[in-house]
């Protein structure tokens, strides 16, 4: 089983190459992509099962022992992230198959969508199984380069404009990550995460803090936490609906995953955890206030995405096993639900021709299925019981109550408020798009007012809902309304079903998350799983190094000392 670990990266990459080699044959490309992702879903599901039974799977690539070779690690957290990501990738792929077939994309000369999509999947999987920082960086780069291509797909004006912002911001974060790796290597002489756990603990406190903050900023840009999230609502909404959906579900979560790994494995008792709680509160509030003031549903959802990253950071910042468990459950829930909502918006855009709340209306009658497909994940994201969003938030609040610090109680209040505001923002979008009549949407205030008292009351409310948004930026100009292919609806319905499954099987999943959380809270466990003889490699004493060769032990220290003298 261990030798199957690299397959979650190799299958998508190999299939991408194969799909690229068959440029004209759309059918073959689609078949390859679907088969590859089904394989990844099956593999990661199997990993999740095995890892839960037997503990982490560790592969030392090329047979080189841990500190020298590259380690690929699948523990409970990685396995869950892999499974959820693979399911989301497959669901969104089916959606885009439906959309692509209807849009006649056979006319484009070069078909790069499917290969790029597979490369994106490979990058995401590589980041999740990386056992060392540099491999994590490579995973990030693979998924980022694929995402650059996907976000500028078609090369239209708005996409290029949004893509430039996205690419430049991502480049800066990549450079920061690389600089952080350089600093970590200079300080410790290794990039293997398990060995770093041991060596970082030996560093002076201020060096630890510097490394921690450097990594946090690099990951924070990707995870879209508060002061570093400005790029997200600007760039995501312009991409095609399936691309936005998969970005919203996965890319920010890869950043969150990296933050989890850094805070649990590299800096287990860091004072940055307190800072994370503050960041969580600010992310929650600023994100949701952005969402409340949006007229375009896609932008609205982008802001709720940022806001709910705050919940994840909240769980990490508590630094207890219950907090980690809640975060892990919430990540799984949020990936699925946020993706589903973006897919539902894709359906709205298709059916209504726009995502602007000023122009949408009467869709409850025109598209009742879409109304339901948007309604269920909306309640779920807003945290209405019995959905998984409620369970995740309950887990977070319970962990906060167990922690019992004033900061944790404050965050509970903020979390509850944000949950209500999420529901408010989404429910307003739903009632404007689906509930009000088409005539009211088209005619604005001049629409004929229904004569019944209920009609008058509703009319007044709709006007009030829109009025508060008169300054908000509106969506792109109207597009042609088109038929919605069955596959698109089916894929969205499938994702809604998956989100409901998370609710139905919340018990087993939450106990799985609890075990994963306990695993994370004990940073020594990961070390003993990855390194054969952790005691020998711990301090770089040179005993176990090849032929007594240990370039790091003395060089790194004197290099730092020298650097200090020079400056």
């Amino acid at each position, binding site marked *: 089983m261990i030798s199957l670990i690299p397959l979650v990266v190799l299958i998508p990459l190999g299939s991408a190459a194969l799909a690229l080699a068959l440029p004209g044959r759309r059918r073959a490309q689609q078949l390859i992509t679907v088969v590859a992702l089904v394989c990844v879903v099956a593999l990661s599901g199997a990993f999740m099962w095995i890892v839960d039974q037997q503990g982490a799977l560790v592969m030392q690539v090329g047979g080189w022992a841990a500190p020298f070779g590259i380690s690929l690690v699948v523990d409970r957290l990685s396995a869950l992230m892999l499974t959820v990501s693979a399911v989301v990738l497959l669901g969104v792929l089916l959606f885009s198959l439906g959309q692509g077939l209807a849009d006649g994309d056979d006319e484009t000369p070069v078909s790069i969508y499917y290969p790029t999509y597979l490369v994106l999947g490979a990058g995401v999987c590589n980041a999740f199984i990386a056992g060392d920082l540099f491999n994590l960086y490579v995973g990030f780069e693979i998924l980022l*380069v694929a995402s650059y291509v996907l976000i500028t797909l078609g090369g239209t004006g708005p996409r290029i404009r949004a893509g430039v912002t996205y690419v430049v911001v991502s480049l800066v974060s990549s450079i920061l990550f*690389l600089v952080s790796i350089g600093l970590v290597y200079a300080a410790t002489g290794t990039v293997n995460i398990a060995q770093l756990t041991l060596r970082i603990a030996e560093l002076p406190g201020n060096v630890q803090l510097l490394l921690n903050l450097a990594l946090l900023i690099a990951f924070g840009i990707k995870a879209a936490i508060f002061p570093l999230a400005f790029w997200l609502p600007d760039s995501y909404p312009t991409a095609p609906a399936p691309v936005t959906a998969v970005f919203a579900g996965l890319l920010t979560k890869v950043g969150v995953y990296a933050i989890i790994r850094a805070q649990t494995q590299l800096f287990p008792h860091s004072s940055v955890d307190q800072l994370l709680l503050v960041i969580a509160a600010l992310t929650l509030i600023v994100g949701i206030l952005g969402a409340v003031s949006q007229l375009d549903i896609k932008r609205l959802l982008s802001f709720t995405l940022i806001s709910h990253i705050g919940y994840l950071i909240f769980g990490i910042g508590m630094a207890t096993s219950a907090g980690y468990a809640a975060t892990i459950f919430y990540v799984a829930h949020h990936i699925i639900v946020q993706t589903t909502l973006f897919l539902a918006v894709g359906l709205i855009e298709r059916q209504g021709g726009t995502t602007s709340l000023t122009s949408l209306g009467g869709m409850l009658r025109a598209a009742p299925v879409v109304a339901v497909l948007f309604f269920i994940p909306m309640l779920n994201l807003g945290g209405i019981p019995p959905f998984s969003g409620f369970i995740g938030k309950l887990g977070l609040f319970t962990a906060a109550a167990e922690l019992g610090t004033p900061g944790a109680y404050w965050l509970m209040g903020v979390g509850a408020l944000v949950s209500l505001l999420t529901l408010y923002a989404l429910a307003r979008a739903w009632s404007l798009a689906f509930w009000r009549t088409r005539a009211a949407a088209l005619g604005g205030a001049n629409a004929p007012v229904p004569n019944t008292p209920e009609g008058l009351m509703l009319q007044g409310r709709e006007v009030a809902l829109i009025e508060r948004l008169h300054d908000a930026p509106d969506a792109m100009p109207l597009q042609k309304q088109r038929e919605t292919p069955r596959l698109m609806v089916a894929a969205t319905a499938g994702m809604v079903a998956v989100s409901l499954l998370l609710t139905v099987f919340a018990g087993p999943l939450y106990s799985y998350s609890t075990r994963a959380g306990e695993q994370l809270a004990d940073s020594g466990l990961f070390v003993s799983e990855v390194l054969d003889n952790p005691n020998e490699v711990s301090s770089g004493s040179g005993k176990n190094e090849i032929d007594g060769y240990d*370039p790091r032990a003395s060089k790194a220290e004197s290099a730092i000392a020298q650097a200090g003298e020079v400056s």
Partner: protein
Amino acid sequence: MTLSIPLVLLAVMVALFAIGVYLLLDRSLTRVLLGFLLVGNATNLLIFLTSGAFGEAPIYGEAEPLDMSDPLPQAFILTAIVITFGVSAFMLALIYRSWRLAREGEDAVVDDAHDLELVDAETLTTDEVTDEGLESEPEFDESNTTDTFEAREGHA
């Protein structure tokens, strides 16, 4: 064993970072790309400097292990160079496309229509402010307004 980091390399790294960050902040995309290249190379130098003192080529059997350079940073740099190369090629394509679309003979970052709407919404509320009033205002920053006006004219 005495080890040292050459001051020249350190100074070059600092200069590359400084110029690179300055260029990254420019509005012209070509300069942003140049800035990215400089910052990328500065990062490579940083990683190179982490390997400590220079030694023999790290090939097994060619030299005593203790005399060798640390090979790992070199592998990092090699990977980083390849990634930078690929991303630069993509950036060039993006810049060309952006320039073709803008058709203004410039490759500057295009303004966000939504941002401009917000700017318009704000100016509505400050209509009664006259030019004389603005000039006598101590906090008033001239460079900001010219930027805004240019941007708005470009989109008018």
